[in-house]
């Protein structure tokens, strides 16, 4: 009996001590981390970091250096992270030059073309009867990584400097776009009245950041390609309202698509629904 009681005392005291030690280690004196790496940054600071990388890239055109810097953030797909950030920046109404820098770096990483900066978004536009389906951000990003304490006193590794390019790429002047495709899409799986627009260049590569202007009798809307990178970097979409006729054109000029309205489609059981339209613009 004496031995059993003695063991309980030991155990309770041990647990109490463990709790005290843990409280001290976690609450009163937790491990302090001072030499953090960029991948541990809070998401909004990662955005600042990406913006700075994009601004530096816009200045020096050093893609390898930009790529090395993006690696520090630990994004599984840096181009997609940049495109998603551009979308967030647009939604937040940030300066378009900054958005363009981020979009341009995303595009360059994808091996896309450098597009000319779209014109400013009008501030007095009238809200359309329909709505853009763009604002949903479905890009998956890495969850915030955790960090471990590092031994101190070790040599600090520096980024390997890369050679500067001999020239800085400048945006190419855009040629007027041609309407090369306009198809009715009857797919009950898609949202009703979905207008899908794809913008490609002369070599049929999709162009991100291209501005498209939709007008109708009582309003106007500007949308941009590349905000849904999972659907293509030259892709943009918009939900058309029924009984509204739209005219669609590229902000840089070219052939417009006129008289666009959602078609009526029929299912196999003879019920009807609003179909969609798929339009393709191409730089000649």
């Amino acid at each position: 009996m004496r031995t059993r009681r003695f063991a309980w005392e030991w155990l309770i005291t041990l647990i109490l001590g463990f709790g005290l030690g843990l409280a001290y280690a976690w609450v009163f004196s937790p491990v302090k981390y001072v030499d953090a790496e960029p991948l541990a940054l809070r998401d909004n600071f990662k955005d600042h970091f990406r913006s700075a990388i994009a601004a530096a890239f816009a200045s020096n055109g050093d893609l390898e250096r930009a790529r090395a810097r993006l690696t520090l953030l630990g994004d599984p797909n840096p181009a997609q992270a940049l495109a998603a950030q551009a979308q967030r920046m647009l939604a937040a109404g940030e300066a378009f030059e900054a958005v363009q820098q981020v979009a341009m770096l995303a595009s360059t990483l994808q091996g896309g073309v450098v597009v000319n900066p779209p014109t400013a978004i009008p501030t007095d536009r009238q809200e359309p009867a329909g709505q853009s389906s763009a604002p949903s951000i479905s890009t998956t990003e890495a969850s915030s990584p955790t960090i471990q304490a590092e031994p101190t006193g070790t040599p600090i590794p520096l980024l390997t400097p890369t050679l500067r390019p001999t020239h800085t790429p400048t945006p190419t002047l855009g040629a007027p776009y041609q309407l090369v495709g306009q198809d009715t899409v009857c797919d009950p799986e898609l949202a009703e009245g979905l207008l899908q627009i794809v913008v490609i260049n002369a070599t049929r590569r999709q162009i991100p950041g291209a501005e498209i202007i939709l007008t109708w009798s009582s309003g106007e809307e500007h949308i941009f390609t590349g905000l849904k990178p999972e659907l293509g970097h030259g892709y943009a979409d918009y939900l058309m309202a029924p009984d509204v006729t739209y005219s669609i054109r590229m902000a840089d000029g070219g052939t417009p698509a006129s008289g666009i309205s959602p078609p009526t489609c029929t299912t196999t059981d003879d019920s009807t629904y609003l179909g969609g339209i798929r339009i393709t613009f191409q730089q000649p």
Partner: protein
Amino acid sequence: MPRWLPTLIALALGITLGLVYGWVINPVQYTDVTPDALRIDYRTDYVLMVAEAYRAEQDPALAARRLAVLGSEPPAVIAGEAESFARQAGYPSDDLSLIQELSVALQTWQPIPGTSLP
């Protein structure tokens, strides 16, 4: 053996185990770090990015806003610290001159009253 000695030993052992667990095995993990906790070489590289952008943009106010992410110190001080580290770490002369250019620009730059840094 005194009666209190086993209790004291158990308490000390428990505290030790708790500390080992809390500091070594499963320490508090920081995932949402602010840039002021960045290691000095990463801070310096961030300043270099801002300096690279500054060379093309020549906008000290924009550069100052970007540097404000690194902490509450004046932008010129942040750039100066980065310059010191870059010099000490043997950064390429091109990069050094970029940071120097930014540092000099920020030393003479005066923020417009009424504007705030992020």
